[in-house]
């Protein structure tokens, strides 16, 4: 069954004085989807989220929620939930009063409120904190209360603005999974803002990569990782070897380019380019195989092994090419242990299908 479109932003634009925080941006969100707005700070992701929440007024464009136009509807009438970066728990109210707040605004009876608060607190596994104040809880507990306050009135869309930003890594990992489970179990639609690419990959159905107030690319995590459409995307997500070259020949989807130093390599390209044009070539370090002989690789770059770094389960190899530029390869630690020495003449080889070629300078 085709899923309903839950939320639409059409050409939403927002400026602060001379600064364009968000250029005309459009995005569709399906019912039950988990969409992450990913990007560096100042990329416009929070501006877009705030416009959807009704916490800032866009200059132009439209916002539709459940088929209703809501561009300038005040946030208290949009019926969505929001979890803030610093939780925004009301410091003068107890946990009970915090969670009861949205229910009181909806004029629910005292008994119903009591029941709902107790229910949602057990969902976030903090049943005994009702009478405490937010400052008396740890960061992780406060985050759960913020989630509980949002889930308690069952909004159909939940917006999250870097909700885990202030927590340490272990806690973040476990809360990421918790949020993911809550999303799956409750079937809610989530828009999640983060600048952490790993978090975006772990949690999202789709990732919307933003940069300088624009959407750079939108797609599934693996789309973005394996088929980046721009240098920014290739560079922002994961590690990559990126270099420029001129197109020398094209066969179907494949394309061969030549670097300035004369090395020719091939990769996949989705866009139309003419021969002689300058393009960018990307190959992920984990797709490179390192060896002492040439073997039968589709693409090959030879040089001196400059440095080897072991980082736990992975080992990184830095290859220095003839023109002193570098390539990086990553392999699982142990697989080639001891066989390679810094200073050796080695070869980096990779398959054409793993390499991407994109436009841009």
């Amino acid at each position, binding site marked *: 069954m085709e899923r309903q479109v839950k939320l639409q932003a059409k050409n939403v634009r927002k400026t602060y004085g001379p600064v364009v925080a968000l250029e005309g941006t459009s995005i569709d969100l399906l019912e039950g989807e988990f969409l992450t707005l990913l990007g560096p700070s100042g990329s416009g992701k929070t501006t877009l989220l705030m416009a959807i929440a009704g916490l800032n007024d866009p200059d132009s464009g*439209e916002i539709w929620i459940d088929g209703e136009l809501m*561009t300038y509807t*005040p946030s208290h009438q949009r019926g*969505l939930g929001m979890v803030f970066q610093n939780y925004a728990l*009301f410091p*003068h109210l107890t946990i009970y009063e915090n969670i009861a*707040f949205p229910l009181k605004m909806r004029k629910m009876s005292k008994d119903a409120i009591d029941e709902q608060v107790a229910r949602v607190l057990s969902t976030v596994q903090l049943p005994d904190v009702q009478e405490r104040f937010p*400052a008396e809880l740890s960061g992780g507990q406060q985050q759960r209360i913020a989630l509980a306050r949002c889930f308690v*009135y069952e909004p159909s869309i939940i*917006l999250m603005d870097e909700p885990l930003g202030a927590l340490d890594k272990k806690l973040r990992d476990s809360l990421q999974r918790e949020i993911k489970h809550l999303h799956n179990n409750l079937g809610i639609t989530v828009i999640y803002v983060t600048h952490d690419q790993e978090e975006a990959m772990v949690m999202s159905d789709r990732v919307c990569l933003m940069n300088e107030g624009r959407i750079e690319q939108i797609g599934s995590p693996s789309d973005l990782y394996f088929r980046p459409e721009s240098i920014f995307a290739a560079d922002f997500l994961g590690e990559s070897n990126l270099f420029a070259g001129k197109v020398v020949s094209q066969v179907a989807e494949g394309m061969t380019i030549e670097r300035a130093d004369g090395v020719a390599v091939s990769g996949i390209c989705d866009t139309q380019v003419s021969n002689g044009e300058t393009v960018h070539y990307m190959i992920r370090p984990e797709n490179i195989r390192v060896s002492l002989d040439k073997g039968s690789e589709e693409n090959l770059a030879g040089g001196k092994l400059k440095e080897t770094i072991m980082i736990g389960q992975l080992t990184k190899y830095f290859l220095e090419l003839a023109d002193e530029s570098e390539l990086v390869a990553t392999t699982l630690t142990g697989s080639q242990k001891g066989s390679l020495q810094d200073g050796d003449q080695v070869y980096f080889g990779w398959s054409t299908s793993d390499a991407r070629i994109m436009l841009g300078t």
Partner: protein
Amino acid sequence: MNVSKKWRRLVRIWPIYPAVLFLLLLFVYPTALLVGLSVADVDGKISVDHYARLFEGELYTKVLLITLKVAAWTTAFAIIAGYPVAYLLANVKSSLRNTLIIWVLLPFWTSFLVRTFAWLVLLGRKGAINDLLIALGIIDYPIKIIYNFTGVMIGMVHALMPLCVLTMLAVMENIDTNLSKAAGTLGARRGQAFWRIYFPLSLPGVAAGGLLIFVTSLGFFITPALLGSARETMIVQLIMFQIDSMLNWGFAGAISMLLLGTVLVIFFLYDRWLGLSTLSGGAQGKTVHTETKRKEGLGARVGVGVLNALGSICAGFGALYDKLVKRDPARPRTDYSRRSLWIVAGLVIFFLAAPTFFIVPVSFTEEGFLSWPPKGFSLQWYESLVAELSPYPAAFGRSVIVALFAGFFAMLVGVPAAFMLVRKQFFGKGAVFAFLVSPIITPHIILAISLFYLFAKLHLIGTYLGLILGHTVVTMPYVIVTVMAVIKNYDLRLDQAAWTLGAGKIQTLRFVTFPIIKGGLIAAFMFAFIISFDELTMAIYLTGGEFSTLPKQMWVDAVMRVNPTLAAVATVMLLFMSAIILVSEFLRRRSLRRIG
């Protein structure tokens, strides 16, 4: 803890002792002398006669009640009018806030006397306000808004509101803006969010601001004396009358103790109900506990109930409005609440900033009295300022010298104390801090007459040394508070880095700490300078004969006859103070930026 360890701890904080000793000698000891006088009869025997006399007739309790009434109304008006301004300041961009704060602070910085003269120009029978109202046809005959309760209220609220705004702002700035937004996404209307979330969180600021205004009002006398009538006589005026005309020190001491006792009772009640810790402003951790305490009492329940009801009423009106006026979700809403906030706060800021400037045109009048509008253009009043027999040039010079030295001494003892209070942990630190800043909340008349008594014995009246020492008592607490704020912002790791790089303690102070906080220190000095330069109460008693300061000279002239010469002095003073304030504000900001 063994004795030697305890001893070493006390030695470790030696830099705080000069400040403590200074106040013991020039604040505690003279006050104790005054208390001694108040419990002695003519023969020097212990007696409670003076205190008995306080409650004999109706006069003293009546004046105390008037004083309390004036203070209460001043506080109420200052909070009600100041709240929207503080709210606006807390919720605009920081660049705009800095501009607006200058206008709010204008009356705070311009001399007390200058401000009061400005109101004389504005409020009189032929003043600018009556003039305007008649021209507009609103009234036919001048209304009486001076030399009565209205005049006193206008003058006092104008004088004290900036302090109230700043205190409330300190708390409001720390209220997370996301909280109101969160309330919005959770389904609360603006009014609900304000009354249920924002207002309760801003209450510590309202309480602290109210306390400061109330206590400061109790010690006022300039405004009631110049803008009020006999019916607005404040308790300080009674003390002054006993000293000036009756030379009855014992009874003056007894009235002083009545005033001081009232101040202490108010602090005590405040602490019981709200906790003095709220005074420091924005102490979020403490809010929890006061909040817990607050919820238990019946009054608190009623309070919360009232706020929630206010929220619901606002929400009701909002919902009604929505029904009557269909909103178009495709068009931005006109933000009426924001607009009305700007209008209200704008009017209040105008009330604060504008009056001072009326003094300028009046100083160029050709007439011999303060009138509005000023007639013609003449420099005669400026000429008379620098005429041969004019006391003003010398008074100005003396004020500058006294202010420079008072500022210098206040820094000398205040800065080391501030360092200790921020950086060291020791037993009774809170009490020591309270002691060191207590001259701020003690009515200045008490400091003035007790030092008058002491210095008269030491032949220090009418000398530079006497007035400088007196002003140091008043300015040092402000230096301590200002410098503490600067040091708190200072990243201690910079010092630690200097130590690891081989710098000793003195070298670290000289090459790292001081250069970084220099701007803040200069600003603290300027602050002390301005306070001393504008100080009148001490000057009235500690100067004498030929030796007079600028405010004292202005006061003497004002009490005798208000004439345009005073407007000319005030204009010069306004220019002088503005220059100093702009420089110190610039330095303060630069230093905050550097260590921010």
